[in-house]
């Protein structure tokens, strides 16, 4: 290598030079991927070492290996699995209900200007209220059963999905609307060939956001008003000062968040292959 040498090398093979450059770029790319994978592992290792050496209080921050061990112990008695199951059910139910409602309202707002002007102020006024603060009202209406929790989650998922879906429709390039009009699309064709596919990318951004909000909401809702679920588990273990068990709950939430993000990303690739 002629590092820092500006001398012309006329004998070098140009293909070879470029080939080497390309290899260097590839190595850099790999190194970046490695960093992404390594960062959570690095954090866990650091945590493990600090906790084991008592640099941080191991009673407050038990080492990750202990948390993993606790996780497997808890799996044994079936209580953990049933808590995970009930939380996932609420998350899925609420997420589905909220997204479907959000997509329908968002599409209507995007396509029909009077609907947009009528509904927009309602959304602006209702969105700042945390659905959790409405939990008592929701319980009055839906009782203390599963529906109350599902509706709470649906309520928080609805807003980002509705707003993004509307934005997706409104931001469709005018020229594509003109093409549809010029070639005589009726309103049904316009909906299925232009409005729906054209708004999908931005709509999916809203769904990505809604997915994260659903998890945030479920934990808080279960801490406040439930007798099952991961949020309830975190809360009760904290109250009993069973911190490794509490951490198991926290790690599970983090894991599901990561997993759902990947799912939505996969959905994006599947639904918008044209991007």
């Amino acid at each position, binding site marked *: 290598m002629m590092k820092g040498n500006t001398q012309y090398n006329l004998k070098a093979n140009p293909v070879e030079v470029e080939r080497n450059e390309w290899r260097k770029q590839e190595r850099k790319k790999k190194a970046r991927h490695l960093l992404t994978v390594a960062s959570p592992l690095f954090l866990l290792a650091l945590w493990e070492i600090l906790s084991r050496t008592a640099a941080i209080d191991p009673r407050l921050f038990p080492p990750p290996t202990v948390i993993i061990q606790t996780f497997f112990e808890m799996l044994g008695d079936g209580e953990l699995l049933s808590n995970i199951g009930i939380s996932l059910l609420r998350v899925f139910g609420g997420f589905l209900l909220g997204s479907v409602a959000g997509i329908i309202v968002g599409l209507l707002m995007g396509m029909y200007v009077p609907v947009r002007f009528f509904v927009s102020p309602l959304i602006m006024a209702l969105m700042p209220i945390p659905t959790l603060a409405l939990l008592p009202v929701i319980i009055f209406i839906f009782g203390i059963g599963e529906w109350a929790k599902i509706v709470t989650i649906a309520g928080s998922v609805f807003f980002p999905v509705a707003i993004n879906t509307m934005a997706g429709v409104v931001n469709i390039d005018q*020229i594509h609307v003109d093409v549809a009009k*010029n070639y005589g699309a009726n309103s049904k064709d316009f909906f299925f*060939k232009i409005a729906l596919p*054209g708004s999908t990318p931005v709509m999916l951004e809203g769904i990505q956001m809604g997915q994260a909000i659903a998890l945030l909401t479920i934990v808080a809702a279960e801490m406040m008003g439930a007798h099952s679920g991961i949020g309830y588990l975190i809360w009760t273990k904290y109250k009993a000062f069973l911190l490794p068990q509490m951490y198991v709950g926290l790690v599970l939430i983090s894991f599901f968040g990561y997993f759902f993000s990947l799912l939505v990303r996969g959905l994006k690739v599947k639904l918008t292959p044209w991007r």
Partner: protein
Amino acid sequence: MDYKISINHLTKVFPKKSGNVVALEDISLHVKDGEFVCLIGPSGCGKTTLLRILAGLEASSTGEFKIHQSDKKKPLQSMIFQEKGVIPWLSVEDNVAFGLKMRHLPKSYIKEQTHYYLEKVGLQKFARLYPKELSGGMKQRVSIARAFANDPEVLLMDEPFGALDEQNKFILQEELLSIWQETKKTVIFITHSIDEALLLSDRIVLMSSQPGQIVAEKNVRMERPRSIEQVRSDQNVADQFVEIWDHLQAEVQGARSSVK
């Protein structure tokens, strides 16, 4: 005499805060069946507005136009848009079939017509790809195929080659001519390139800006089929170029001095 397109006293005004902009003033134009007409003029002269009115995308303020319908089943007009007119979430094939599908024609007919024009523009191999994988020239081929496949009474083209590099432009112009020669459609074509207008059209209509008016018309005296080489080498065509250029130059200068 019966015309394919009759435009009578068309005026379009855009109200603006700072006063009204007269985009088109008293435009009258008559186009014969099978005629290829180029509208040429400085930017902002309202030529796109005129085309959008004919395309049903905008309403005129006053005046009227009529496109003669020879066959009840044919759509009146189809537009070839600028480069971004290809719909990104439809495959090449579905883009070409778009007009036919919007008219809910029989599947077999749609398939046949789509294949025919995909082959005409040399895109049959790319039928299943999305537009993102195509170059600018290929996207415009999709647009051209989509309009011809729709088999309208009249074709409207809004600077379809404006965004292309020169080589691609020449190739596409000649391809367009060869497809057009086969179908003999009536065409109104917008451009600001004099070369393009001379190569393609039977008649060139010159417009002025603000107010947008028709200031002159020129018949192009050149045998068909034509080629880009002819436009560049024929003395007769060169003279016509200079004539049109003089006109446009006066127009552009006029617009500039009136603004200041």
